[in-house]
């Protein structure tokens, strides 16, 4: 039988099918399972109650990130500081106890390797191309940036994977997002993915796995690819991926959990076959012209509510769908914005640079480039940088970026999820605005009543120095300062 042309997604899926039932449901083998403190305690507890063990602790890695405070975790003598919030402390204690009890590798909250689970996975070489990767967090889609099939799961599925190293799933449909042409100067992967979500809508990818294709991605760094794939879930797709290539292989080579020697060579040989066949058919295709993508900002309370920074707040009547019109009215009310208002006239009081979308070294460099020799505007009350991991933090410090941030009036914090979802003490106050490099502008996401504008790291820096949403491309070149 001649083999049917397959997409990248289908190739990875097929390689992991344990069994396929007549109704199409498959038992799918999971290669890598990342565990954090918030969505795992109930899963471990259920295993304990049922007398079940973890089938493959060697394929599981635990690291706390969601509710850890980003203030210093040890005192001057190196002793661990207690977490003040008793519930957060209890969740952390549960993970610290569960990991060794079930034989799982654990990265401690004070270890230099600690960080946001989606930064840690690729950085440690634990996440690999062609692997199936899951985590109890919807932004697991990020790992698709290195060519993995990676998706978020709920706690019952966390328990299912711990117990069986598999999931029962039906294959998704395939969706191609093909980006043609080149991004303009000053336009980043974050702007591109915000633009894509604006085009397809937050339900545009529901039931699908997205493959991002086109020359833009071939030239994009691994960090940029992780940013793009990370936000696939904001377009409704449980997973998004980009075919792995030399850029990915050289990023992974030598990382702590990555294969070595002969195993590495065999792995690379297999990874090189991981791309969609030329005649592969996608269930849905969306074509995006890269040249029209501008630095992009969200105005509403859904990630599909985006406009170019040079644009204006849309009028609810401009949407064809009546339910979208009423949603837009509610959004504008929550965001305290008027139709027709210029985006660049929106003043902000807070800036957050961080999250699994934009907290990697390249993101911090992009923000620091804008901030060098500048300080935050007087109306910016709170500006923080939360590196994605301890290793990102150390690298940034080695490059002097921390000095640039603190000189500009930013606080330089310990790694974690922080103000992206405001589970820890890092919150935007009610009624205040935040230019945020995170991924969701939902009502109350960054704290009750907080108003989020999603932007790229460079745009967040531009917002900090101007005190409003501003086009980073129009800032005058700043003076060079020895960092």
């Amino acid at each position, binding site marked *: 039988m001649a083999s049917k042309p397959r997409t990248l997604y289908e190739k990875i899926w097929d390689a992991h099918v*344990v069994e396929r039932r007549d109704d199409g449901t498959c*038992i799918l083998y999971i290669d890598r399972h990342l565990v954090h403190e918030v969505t795992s305690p109930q899963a471990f507890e259920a295993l304990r109650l049922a007398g079940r063990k973890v089938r493959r602790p060697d*394929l599981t890695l635990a690291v706390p990130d969601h509710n850890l405070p980003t203030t210093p975790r040890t005192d001057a003598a190196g002793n661990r500081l207690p977490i003040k*919030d008793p519930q957060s402390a209890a969740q952390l204690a549960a993970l610290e106890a569960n990991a060794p009890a079930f034989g799982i590798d654990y990265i401690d909250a004070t270890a230099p390797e600690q960080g946001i689970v989606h930064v840690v996975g690729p950085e440690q070489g634990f996440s690999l191309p062609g692997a199936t990767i899951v985590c109890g967090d919807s932004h697991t889609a990020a790992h698709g940036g290195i060519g993995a099939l990676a998706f978020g799961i*709920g*706690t019952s*599925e966390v328990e299912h994977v711990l117990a069986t190293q598999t999931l029962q799933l039906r294959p998704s449909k395939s969706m191609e997002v093909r980006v043609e042409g080149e991004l303009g100067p000053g336009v980043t992967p974050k702007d591109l993915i915000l633009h894509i979500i604006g085009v397809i809508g937050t*339900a545009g990818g529901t039931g699908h796995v997205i493959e991002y294709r086109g020359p833009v991605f071939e030239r994009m760094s691994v960090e940029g690819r992780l940013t793009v794939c990370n936000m696939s879930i904001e377009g409704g797709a449980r997973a998004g991926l980009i075919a792995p290539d030399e850029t990915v292989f050289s990023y992974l080579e030598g990382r702590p959990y990555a294969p070595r020697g002969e195993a590495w060579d065999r792995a690379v040989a297999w990874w090189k076959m991981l791309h969609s066949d030329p005649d592969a058919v996608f269930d849905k295709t969306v074509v995006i012209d890269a040249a029209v993508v501008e630095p992009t900002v969200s105005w509403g309370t859904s990630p599909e509510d985006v406009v170019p920074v040079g644009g204006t707040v849309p009028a609810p009547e401009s949407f064809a769908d009546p339910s979208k019109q009423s949603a837009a009215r509610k959004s504008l009310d929550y965001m305290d914005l008027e139709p027709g208002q210029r985006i660049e006239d929106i003043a902000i009081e807070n800036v957050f640079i961080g999250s699994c979308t934009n907290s990697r070294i390249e993101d911090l460099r992009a923000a620091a480039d804008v901030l060098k020799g500048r300080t935050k505007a007087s109306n910016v009350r709170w500006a923080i940088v939360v590196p994605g991991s301890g290793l990102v933090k150390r690298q940034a410090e080695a490059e002097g970026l921390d000095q640039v941030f603190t000189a500009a009036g930013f606080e330089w914090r310990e790694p974690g999820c922080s103000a992206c979802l405001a589970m820890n003490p890092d919150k935007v106050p009610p009624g205040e605005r935040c230019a945020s490099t995170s991924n969701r502008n939902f009502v109350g996401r960054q704290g009750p009543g907080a108003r989020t504008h999603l932007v790229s790291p460079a745009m967040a820096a531009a917002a900090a120095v101007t005190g409003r949403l501003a086009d980073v491309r129009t800032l005058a070149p700043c003076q060079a300062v020895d960092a």
Partner: protein
Amino acid sequence: MDKVSTIEGRAIPLGLKNVDTDVIIPAHWLKTVSREGLGKGAFETIREAPGNPFDVEDFAGAPILIAGDNFGCGSSREHAAWALLDLGIAAVIAPSFSDIFSGNAFKNGILTVELAQDQVDRLLEIAADHPIAIDLENQIVTTPFQDRFAFEVDPFRKHCLLEGLDEIGLTLERGAAIETHEQQRARALPWLDAPQRRDAA
């Protein structure tokens, strides 16, 4: 898991589109190590408004929720399903659901019913004053006014819900097949097994 067959009673006519999981249960409620008690935080921001449908007396204890397109979008938090359960919601009707949410709902015995927007609109209208019924066995939603809306449901999920089956138990019964796959995988893709942490090169 409890068996699910027919769900009948009042339905909360929420109707909103893109109800995300931060709306269903805000993040500050996630600092729990238990599945219980999350109903208190369910739809917290919506319930701040006076006259919201959740606090109308007629809908107290209503087993059904009716919402707009893309219900449950956003985060993977299963706390959203646990919060609905704690509120007493046994089924959600909407034109579409996010993939992760519908999986989480199913695993907690909550039925998600997809109907066309005009049918959902009709139910929203009826729900204001009348009960509705969902018959899983026959895959049909009915009202006191002869409306009969058929819906699709994944056959495996239907079977599990009707019989109250434990999915992990079912998968563990396939242990031999999983072992065979692991052996093939160890030969074909050996680098995926037992990754050993080493100092970075």
